[in-house]
């Protein structure tokens, strides 16, 4: 591996260590869940590889033990993963890189890859495209590997490290606090926290996520409209 790639890889490894810990725990829990439902370890492994969207995989694992219903599968997938549309809009420029890496970056854009790749500005001596590529690669590797482990050894392993999954919460908190510290205007950040908290309490955990994204986009439209109007009247 040449030095450009290896420095980018090392930096990506360092930045994704918390995700490794979190995915190891959650991925194994997911693999064990499928194991308990009577599936061969290949199921969680291949689902982790092809779908690569944690919360949806738990839902699909549950659907697999019921009767075949392709329309519900499609509907649930689009609802649960609609947030990716908004990640994509945010990454149109950053992920518009030359060659095949672009397609892999988009394919692997889970919550964690999006957040770390958006929030990290690597030092000047590190190639940003290779860094983002390795972040995505490593995240997918952690997820597939731990799902496989859970599926293989589901009946042998017993967790004693209760509570380790909190690393994911802590990661998102740290990324959010960093965002607050580097921005001058907190409108968007506070909008995200407030809108999603209110909708979570009012609508419950199933629907609040896609509707929060829609409402935040709506607030942006009103703000833009107002900005354009005041601009015109000046």
């Amino acid at each position: 591996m040449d030095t450009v790639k290896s420095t980018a890889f090392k930096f990506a490894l360092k930045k994704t260590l918390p995700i490794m810990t979190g995915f190891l725990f959650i991925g194994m829990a997911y693999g064990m869940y499928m194991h308990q439902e009577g599936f061969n370890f290949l199921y969680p492994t291949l689902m982790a590889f092809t779908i690569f969207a944690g919360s949806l995989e738990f839902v699909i694992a549950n659907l697999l033990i019921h009767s075949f219903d392709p329309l519900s599968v499609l509907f649930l997938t689009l609802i649960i993963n609609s947030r990716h549309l908004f990640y994509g809009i945010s990454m149109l420029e950053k992920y518009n890189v030359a060659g095949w890496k672009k397609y892999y970056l988009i394919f692997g854009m889970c919550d964690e890859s999006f957040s770390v790749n958006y929030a990290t500005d690597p030092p000047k001596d590190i190639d940003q495209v290779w860094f983002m590529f390795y972040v995505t690669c490593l995240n997918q590797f952690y997820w597939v590997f731990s799902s496989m482990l859970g599926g293989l050894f589901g009946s042998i392993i017993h967790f004693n490290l209760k509570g380790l999954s909190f690393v994911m919460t802590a990661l998102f908190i740290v990324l959010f606090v960093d965002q607050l510290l580097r921005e001058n205007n907190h409108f968007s950040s506070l909008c995200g926290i407030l809108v999603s908290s209110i909708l979570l309490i009012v609508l419950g955990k199933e629907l609040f996520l896609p509707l929060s994204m829609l409402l935040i986009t709506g607030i942006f439209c009103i703000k833009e409209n107002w900005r354009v109007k005041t601009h015109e009247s000046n």
Partner: protein
Amino acid sequence: MSLTEEILTISIAAFGTILTRFLPFLLFPGNKPIPIFIQRLGKFLPPAILGVLVIYCYKDLPANFTSNSVFEIIAGVITVLVHLWKKNMFLSISIGTCSYILLLNFFNLTSIL
């Protein structure tokens, strides 16, 4: 479900996920200028999304508020404070997570209340 139906179910989920990830890039391909509105939306959204993802981690709280929920909030506050103090990602995540594990395993609220 037969094997074919299982493969179809997994394929539909994979295809749907790929669709939600690729759609913005298909609508606004890199070789054409992106409309100003979309550019501005793309700049506005990320801080809000990071906020939404924090709330997403606490999504089970309102419906099922237990002593664990209190520990999650305390550990979250500790994470914020350590991060404001030292601004070191690993330190904040480690201390936050360790405090949650300690609270969860050694501090049983139900036995006190």
